């Protein structure tokens, strides 16, 4: 079940610099979810966690049979574990990148295993970055910069 720590609906046409970036963290390991949550909340982001790819897709409105309702959902970064039961992080990445409405969201894949073919596969698949676990404060800080840049670019495009 997706656990929302704080969720506010933001109309897609309005952008506020004060809005906290919203991170969706997907990982089947409970301890990792807790650590990622704290890492990003400490970097002043809102965090929603999901325990597997299926739940993540449901949250994003991309699950089979769902009608997407994107006006209210604002996710600025998706961070997903690679090795998960049912659907790997790579498969989740592909589903997100295939979605007309969600494909712009940067997706970061994390893994405890440093396997070059896996890294290449994810980068080819459209991942923003591939990070090794366990994640550290410096990773969250780096990712938050990516989010800020992406948000700022969005604003510039509208001008």
């Amino acid at each position: 079940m997706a656990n929302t720590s704080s969720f506010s609906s933001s109309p897609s046409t309005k952008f506020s610099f004060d809005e906290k970036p919203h991170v969706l963290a997907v990982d089947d390991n409970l301890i990792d979810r807790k650590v990622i949550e704290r890492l990003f909340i400490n970097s002043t982001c809102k965090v929603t966690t999901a325990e597997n790819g299926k739940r993540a897709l449901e949250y994003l409105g991309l699950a089979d049979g769902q009608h997407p309702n994107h006006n209210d959902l604002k996710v600025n970064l998706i961070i997903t574990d690679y090795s998960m039961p049912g659907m790997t992080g790579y498969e989740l990445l592909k589903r997100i990148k295939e979605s007309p409405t969600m494909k712009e969201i940067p997706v970061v894949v994390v893994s405890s295993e440093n396997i070059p073919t896996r890294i290449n596969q994810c980068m080819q698949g459209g991942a923003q970055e591939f990070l090794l676990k366990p994640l550290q404060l410096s990773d969250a800080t780096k990712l938050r910069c990516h989010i800020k840049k992406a948000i700022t670019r969005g604003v510039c495009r509208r001008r």
Partner: protein
Amino acid sequence: MEVGQMQRAWVEYTRSLFREGFLDAQFQQLQLLQDESNPDFVAEVVSLFFEDSERLLADLTFVLEQQNIDFKKVDAHVHQFKGSSSSIGAQRVKNDCIAFRNFCEEQNIEGCLRCLQQVKQDYYLVKSKLEALIRLEQQIVAAGGSIPMEELSS
């Protein structure tokens, strides 16, 4: 014991845990994530780790007791255990899991059973150390002091 003494004891104890390889730098990362708005973060994560680990150890014991061992299942559990011990900085447990996975790959029953014993031993050791550490932290806070994290970097 007065606060200053307890704080010094905490520094010494934490340093010894790192020195003896029970904990690694990842535990420090967790400590850095704790602050006034989340004073119980480390205790919470540690508590989750204990629950998760006991479940994994019970599952591992069960799977390895079967006539026909499902090595895929064993590997899946060890992978989980390696993940959580790595995320919390429980270095010895993590290293035991790495060795364990190698024996799984080889489908070496003897090796796996030995590893199970080793990982149980190291888990219970680090569990008692972490419990002692957190108790000490709680005593410091109850006495009105703060955890001297900055002392660890010196």
